[in-house]
């Protein structure tokens, strides 16, 4: 059991490093086992280095850097083991326009393997979708769903 986990962690670390440097265009990322007495119950530590900056405590990262680091972690796992579908609720809220475009491009690549259902308020994300659903409340308090084509979005999106 433990040997299997160590070998999976090694694959996850490689996938995380590759996905992180792809998303950030550089830098470095590591997943490693904690230095604990008992290896069997040791947790997993994350360490990242942003391009051009020094390796620092995770707590010093900015809101957008933290969001993108988490996105790289999740995508690294999706690459190792795809899931039936991936449901993401406004995970792009902290990203600036440049990183949002990077993220949207990345999703498009991953969407060849995995189905995405993405909730977002951001224009760049709406444009990345093949199909867009609008959820509104014509009657206050009661949800109603419309399937929109791309040109409907301008007038309906929240």
């Amino acid at each position, binding site marked *: 059991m433990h040997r299997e986990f160590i070998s999976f962690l090694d694959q996850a670390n490689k996938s995380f490093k590759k996905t992180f440097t792809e998303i950030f265009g550089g830098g470095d990322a590591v997943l490693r086992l904690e230095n604990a007495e008992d290896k069997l119950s040791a947790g997993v530590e*994350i360490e990242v280095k942003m391009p051009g900056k020094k390796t620092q405590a995770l707590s010093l990262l900015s809101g957008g850097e933290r969001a993108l680091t988490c996105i790289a972690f*999740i995508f690294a796992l999706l690459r190792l*083991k795809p899931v039936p579908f991936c449901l993401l609720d406004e995970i792009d809220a902290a990203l600036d326009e440049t990183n949002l475009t990077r993220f949207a491009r990345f999703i498009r690549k991953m969407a060849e393997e995995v189905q995405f259902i993405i*909730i*977002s308020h951001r224009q760049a994300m709406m444009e990345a979708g093949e199909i867009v659903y609008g959820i509104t409340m014509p009657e206050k308090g009661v949800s109603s769903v419309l399937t929109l084509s791309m040109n409907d979005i301008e007038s309906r999106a929240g």
Partner: protein
Amino acid sequence: MYLKKIEMKGFKSFAEHTEIIFKPGINVVVGPNGCGKSNLVDAVRWVLGENNIRELRGQKSEDVIFNGTDKFRALSMASVEIVLDNADGLLPLDYSEVAVGRKIFRSGESEFYLNKARVRLKDINKVFTGTGLGKCGYSIIGQGELEEVLNGAPMDRRLILEEAS
């Protein structure tokens, strides 16, 4: 394998019978604040067996049943069904499509269905173990939950990795 369809009635703000057909690839959901987008995420979590009502932002299990507005009366039942395409046989069942359903009544009692046949929660959990859709899965990220990967303790991260392995 992908999520083909979701049908809801009386679940949170989805008072009326609502059906959404999804496609493989990228499906984007938009809409104003407070209109029901995150309620859709709760519906998917709930039908897959989520029993901790706090994970669904409620306080008691009946909080998922439509509880009325200024104009409409509260309902007495909520039901959700999702249909998954299983053409690639990822789920250990002999069907090309797998429907998972759940109902709840004001009494708080839940019923689970698998391809229209009544089953127990244990059966649903058995079908989905190892697919990444389980409890520590990384395939559903709720609003405000993205940073839990970084904020959690090292042991939490290990659990996510073990679910993925």
